[in-house]
């Protein structure tokens, strides 16, 4: 237990400084108004206290200019806060495109982490320092929340939908990882540590795994095992009954109803679990659903495999691509 109580958690990410500066500004504004009102109340109520010579208050008419002033000033300050806070938030919600992507699955009451090369870990997240990290997260059951106070980041982890969170750790060390959305009995124990390492240590740690296959390899194995190959094919061209998956990820897919959608993680996930939601133009809705057949971890592996099949040049539009 610390002797002195710290007022700020450790600053270990690129966001921490900005959030703390904003927070200090908010504290100062709050302090200023609290002092103005507090001193005003104390001063007036002492200065104009009830005495024999002051049995009743003076008549003071209202003041329109004062009313306008104390509406306008808070409004201006509030809008400034809004702008500053939004700037930070937009930054937090927009991950850089070249970030290292790590997959997180939350379940009652543990965190399962899969690194791109296949190394898996539980309730711990190892990341290299000074590198943008993007977490793609999903829950197997209820809503959880991935919260690392030292990074000043937090994002709910939802069932049925991917959310993302990104950060750049700036200091090596061990930092608390909390679940901060109430999720049941062991909610307070659903946490662990984020371990920030030097890049070389991270590489060593990655290779120290049990030599398991990478995410893509696992996904490829699943792709064969679930017989996706028989329709989608595995080569360059489209399969017998379904579009080829090469270069699908990140492309714009034309659907049979004329719409065009972006083939992102959510789209691929939906196409596996609910194949008939979006039918690729030129194909029949014949793919069976894999809902209940594969787990969220396996889904992430499949997505990693599809992603590994290549990304099209920017802006490319494919008329025959996607699922089925």
């Amino acid at each position, binding site marked *: 237990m610390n002797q002195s109580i710290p007022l700020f958690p450790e600053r270990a990410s690129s966001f921490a400084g900005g959030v703390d500066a904003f927070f200090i500004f908010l504290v100062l504004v709050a302090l200023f108004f609290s002092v103005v009102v507090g001193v005003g109340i104390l001063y007036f109520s002492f200065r104009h206290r009830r005495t024999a010579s002051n049995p009743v208050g003076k008549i003071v008419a209202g003041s329109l200019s004062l009313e306008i002033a104390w509406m306008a000033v808070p409004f201006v300050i509030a809008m400034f806060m809004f702008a500053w806070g939004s700037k930070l938030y937009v930054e937090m919600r927009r991950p850089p495109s070249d970030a290292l992507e790590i997959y997180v699955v939350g379940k009652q009451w543990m965190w399962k982490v899969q690194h791109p090369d296949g190394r898996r870990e539980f309730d711990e997240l190892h990341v290299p320092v000074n590198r943008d990290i993007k977490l793609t997260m999903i829950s197997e059951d209820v809503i959880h929340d991935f919260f690392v106070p030292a990074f000043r980041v937090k994002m709910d982890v939802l069932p049925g939908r991917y*959310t993302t969170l990104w950060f750049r750790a700036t200091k090596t060390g061990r930092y608390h990882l909390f679940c901060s959305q109430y999720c049941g009995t062991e909610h307070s124990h659903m946490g662990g540590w984020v371990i920030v390492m030097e890049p070389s240590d991270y590489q060593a740690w990655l290779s120290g795994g049990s030599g398991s296959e990478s995410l893509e390899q696992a996904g490829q194995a699943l792709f064969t095992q679930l017989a996706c190959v028989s329709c989608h094919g595995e080569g360059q061209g489209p399969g017998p009954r379904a579009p080829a998956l090469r270069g699908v990820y990140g492309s714009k897919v034309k659907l049979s109803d004329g*719409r065009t959608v972006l083939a*992102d993680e*959510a789209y691929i996930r939906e196409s596996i679990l609910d194949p008939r939601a979006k039918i690729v133009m030129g194909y029949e809705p014949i793919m069976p659903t894999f809902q209940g057949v594969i787990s969220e971890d396996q889904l992430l592996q499949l997505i990693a495999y599809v992603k590994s099949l290549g990304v099209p040049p920017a802006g490319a539009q494919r008329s025959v691509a996607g699922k089925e």
Partner: protein
Amino acid sequence: MSESKQHVIPFKTYALILAALLALTLITYHVALVDLGPWNIVVAIVIACTKAVLVVLFFMHAAYAPRRTRLVILAGVFWLLLLLGLTLADYLTRPPATDSISSNNAPAAYVR
């Protein structure tokens, strides 16, 4: 308010409103048989709103009611739109990259 109590609307008005409501019901059914793309739902809602307004104004006597009553009705409509509108402000602006329903940003129409 007392004015509205004394005001007896002629039978003919009620009968006309009834005829209009039944006609609109038929129209909404037949329009639904025609493929108008996204406009099917728009037409259906417009017809339903028209019917509702007829009922409120004449069957419920709002046309003859004091301003206060009309204010209450408008408040109801306003808050209902608030609930729908602000929630849709979230659903319709979710970015494609993070959200599985994003690609349904098109109008409520059923698109095949």
